[in-house]
């Protein structure tokens, strides 16, 4: 989590320089869902994500240089500078794809699980999506199919309470939590504190065990919160759609702060070690950015490349 936070904060700080010409949705504040779930996965398990995909990419083991180079539009980017921040992928480590259209990768994750099931491959397929996707038809179509076919899918809804600037309570029925809608399809489902990485990890492990033992999908609703603006590196309290009080409330429940406190209280590490890790990550990302800036842009001769196989 600390590595992801450090990487994203460094990128956010450099974003205003204008070198990263790609709409960027930061995961800052939501790292525990990505890390907790991906810690429960094997390399061969598949992960799909949406527009806010940095944390999922990194937590699944996505190559840092590939991500930074993609943001800088370089040929060395994970999508060769053709995809940008919202289309991160690293299939070699099971990070299959991310997409900027709401709910698209819920269906593709179900499809990959379908392929696993057809071939008796023992893997699970995970789809990360936000509370906004719950309003899309494809969410329901995909859940229905996954249940009917008993597919090994872990649905992970990161409920950060906002779709762009629209609050959840104005978009969905107040009294029916999202995980309950999954239950209405007959799916095993649970809600978890999405800012508590251990709770997310334990729920993911339980979900994956259930998928393996009982067959069929599992649904995890992680309650979390986006600290920064919907898209872009800034804080957006001035915009008036949410209060500073609300943001302070969630920042006090920072997933990294909580995890650090837990680790320290258990004597699992020392404050000095935490500082050391932070420095290591800072050095890693700065070095990566430095090396990426020197890398070539894609050659315009290759503009059409990859359109067809």
């Amino acid at each position, binding site marked *: 989590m600390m590595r992801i936070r450090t990487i994203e904060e460094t990128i956010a700080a450099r974003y205003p320089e204008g070198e990263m010409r790609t709409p960027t949705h930061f995961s800052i504040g939501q790292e525990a869902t990505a890390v907790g779930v991906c810690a429960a996965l094997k390399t061969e398990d*598949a992960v*799909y994500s949406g527009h806010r995909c940095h944390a999922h990419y990194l937590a699944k083991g996505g190559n840092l240089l590939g991500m930074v180079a993609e943001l800088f539009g370089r040929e060395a*980017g*994970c*999508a*060769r500078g*053709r*995809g940008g921040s919202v*289309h991160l*992928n690293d*299939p070699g480590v099971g990070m*299959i*794809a991310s*997409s900027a*259209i709401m709910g*698209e*990768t*819920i*269906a*593709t*994750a*179900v*499809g*990959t*699980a*379908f*392929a*696993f099931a*057809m*071939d008796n491959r023992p893997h699970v*397929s995970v789809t990360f999506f936000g509370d906004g996707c719950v309003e899309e*038809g*494809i969410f329901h*179509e*995909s859940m*229905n*199919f996954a249940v*009917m076919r008993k597919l090994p899918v872990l649905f992970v809804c990161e409920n950060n309470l906002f779709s762009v600037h629209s609050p959840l309570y104005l978009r969905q029925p107040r009294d029916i939590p999202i995980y309950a809608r999954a239950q209405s399809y007959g799916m095993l489902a649970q809600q978890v504190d999405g800012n508590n990485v251990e709770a997310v990890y334990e729920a993911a492990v339980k979900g994956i065990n259930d998928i393996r033992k009982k067959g069929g999908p599992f649904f995890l609703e992680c309650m979390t919160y986006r600290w920064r603006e919907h898209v872009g590196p800034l804080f957006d309290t001035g915009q008036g759609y949410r209060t500073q009080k609300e943001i302070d409330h969630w920042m006090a429940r920072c997933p990294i702060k909580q995890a650090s406190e837990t680790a320290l209280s258990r004597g699992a590490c020392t404050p000095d070690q935490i500082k050391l890790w932070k420095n290591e990550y800072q050095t890693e990302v700065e070095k990566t950015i430095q090396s990426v800036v020197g890398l070539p842009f894609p050659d315009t001769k290759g503009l059409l*490349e*990859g*359109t*067809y*196989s």
Partner: protein
Amino acid sequence: MRKLKYWEAISEALVQCMAEDKNIFIAGAGVDDPRGIFGTTLEAYRRFGKDRVFDIPNCENAFAGIATGAAVAGKRPVVVHARDDFMFLASDQIINLMAKWKYMFGGKNSVPMLVRGITGRGWGQGATHSQSLHTMFAHFPGLYVIAPAFPSDVKGLIISALHGNTPVLLFENRACYQIEEEVSEELVPIPFGKARVVREGKDITIVGASLMAYEALRAADILKESGVSAEVIDPRSIRPLDRETILASIAKTGRLVIADTSWNLYGFTAEIAALAAEEGWQYLKAPVRRLAQADCPAPVSKPLEEAFHPTPLSIVKACQSLMELDVDLRKPLTDIQEHFQGPY
């Protein structure tokens, strides 16, 4: 060589490809039912069973994505829409993801997949059950779009689709299903982007997509009686388009008529006309003529439906105007779907 009907050629191509590649499966509403998509999936279901030929819930968009996710994980889906109009529901996944996958994810993996969409025709199918979508989907880079009119072509193109790694959309006009011709028993692929010169001629070029290639052939028969030699070209694949064959024909004849089962505005006929204007203008002895559906949704009532579709006679009339000829149109023609009474 034995003859097959269009639907039999589709069935044979699917069965032969499935026999050689265990990753191919066929999915769609009704593919395993007793009618088996106008017979095209019956034999595959009989041979390979419900694990590889199966019904799905009504979820066109999700299933386009599910098939994409399965294709990326090593499968080779064949998705069937008994009416292609339902592909509008799947167009987000097809256009925003399937078509762009290889490009926008940096070329690492492909989406090998065949999507079949059947265009209704006859018996008052109406506004939402008889549209031709080849022209709309052909707008988007990343897809191959094919709409052949003849049995041997549909077989050969399906083989190419199931041997390749690009997502392919196949549009089958229901009126073509009874067309019969000799079809190779072997697995002989036909390349994308290669037109078929259905009939050679020297006076006028008729380019017809899908059913209109067949109707153009019927028009050419009528024109022949008046001494007009029409060359008929079936592009077979809408994207990529065989520009060379069409241009070579215009160079030979100097006259061009284009017919399509969709609408003129921004469509297939506009594309071919643009090709002639940009690269073939020096060959043209007369203006280009375009024939397509009337510029309204498809009506149901028989006289309206008859007035709606381009026909061999309307193609003949267009050719006649370019040739400054009076062709004797004594014999009224029967519409190819005149006797169609279902199943739908």
